């Protein structure tokens, strides 16, 4: 999503990307540390306990941002994959490749914190709530995407395959999600099991949550830039090695 700037195709050049991101990373890292520190400590220490859930509610400052990222990182991968297919910019493909493990981690964090939260509130670590099911589905497609990269060596063909896999994955993930929703109609009691807190959340919780969301997003950007740079350098290294071997 870092690509939605005006100078969008300029950073498509790997060298340009490395130099721009090199300047951005320290800045983003500071912003991340500051906003995450502020958001999490504000959320955990300076907000009142929920009258029903007690202090357990405070896990939302980790849970909600990671869940938010888990979904959006997949969408970002989808967009960058399409950009790769259309415009053949290596950086775009490498960004998708670099983002996948972050997305997987965020999905796992969201599921784990959700389970920890669920135990005191629902009395169980896991229920087959449509939203939980969707995350399980998302997890599977992240694993599929990462496994194609780990199984096959980097080249343009595998890039195309992974991009197509990402698109196919999102189609089937959506289909599965609606299949889940179709059957859960009338089975669930909605709000009490729903994780969607934004509607009935009060300002006291909302502001630190926003800061946390921002912090997580900037954490993602930092990690993504670092990982993409690493990928670019790996690619550059193999290009240089090939050039040397050709001489």
């Amino acid at each position: 999503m870092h690509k939605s700037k005006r100078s969008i195709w300029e950073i498509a050049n790997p060298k340009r990307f490395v130099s721009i991101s090199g300047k951005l990373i320290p800045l983003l890292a500071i912003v991340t540390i500051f906003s995450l520190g502020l958001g999490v400590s504000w959320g955990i220490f300076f907000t009142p306990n929920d009258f029903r859930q007690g202090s357990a509610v405070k896990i939302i400052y980790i849970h909600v941002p990671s869940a938010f990222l888990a979904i959006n990182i997949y969408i970002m991968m989808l967009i960058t994959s399409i950009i790769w297919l259309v415009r053949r910019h290596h950086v775009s493909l490498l960004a998708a490749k670099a983002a996948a493990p972050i997305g997987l981690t965020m999905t796992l964090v969201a599921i784990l914190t959700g389970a920890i939260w669920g135990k005191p509130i629902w009395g169980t670590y896991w229920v087959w709530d449509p939203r939980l099911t969707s995350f399980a589905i998302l997890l599977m497609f992240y694993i599929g995407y990462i496994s194609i990269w780990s199984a096959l060596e980097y080249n343009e063909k595998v890039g195309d395959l992974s991009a197509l896999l990402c698109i196919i994955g999102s189609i089937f993930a959506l289909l599965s999600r609606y299949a889940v929703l179709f059957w859960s109609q009338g089975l669930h009691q909605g709000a009490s099991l729903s994780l969607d807190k934004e509607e009935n959340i009060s300002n006291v919780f909302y502001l630190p949550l926003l800061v946390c969301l921002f912090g997580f997003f900037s954490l993602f950007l930092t990690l993504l830039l670092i990982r993409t740079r690493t990928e670019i350098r790996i690619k550059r290294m193999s290009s240089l090695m090939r050039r040397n071997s050709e001489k």
Partner: protein
Amino acid sequence: MKPYIYILSHEMKFSTNGKSLLLSTCFFIIIILTTSISVSQFGVETSATSVAILWVALALSALLSVKVMFQIDFDDGTLDWLMLSPISLETIIVLKAITHWLTTCLPMMVLTPLVCIPLGITFDSALWILLVMLIGTPAISFISTIGAALTLGERGSHLLLSIFILPTFLPILLFGIKISMLVTNSIYDSSAFLILLAISLVCIAITPFITSMIIKVHYT
């Protein structure tokens, strides 16, 4: 005879000549027997999960014969030749999927009323489940072509293929299993039937184009 009849019969001959027909059907029976035996020893009510076992066993067994779908043709140059034949690649993919369905899904469906006995499903429900399978399984065969194409040229990528493809069966499985469960309880949800049919038809309609795109990637 039209050329595609030749291709279909050729494909059929290979799928039945080779051991894959027997193997995947045997695998299907083995999965069902092992799970129902192990579940039955604990005195657990089988019928609740038996439908799910049936479908998942079918999906897993269907995956067994997917890898060879394009691999052999890709290796011995037949795919090259077919791409320069008057028949379009999409048609060839459709023929492959039909062959897969006829040689893998159909034998398992024929066995379904039989394997329903150890699973504790009545014969009447078994016939209904057969109808649901008839709607759902063609989509499984068609979606499988995507996996076969994705892992083309990669030796020993059976596992990789299953990792990609099994999650994409989920929409079909979700509807298939749920409708089958309702049917065993004598609830006939026609709208769910129609949605399963719709998903199945959409998969059949779009997968040949996706698969041909993927195969063309292998030609660059």
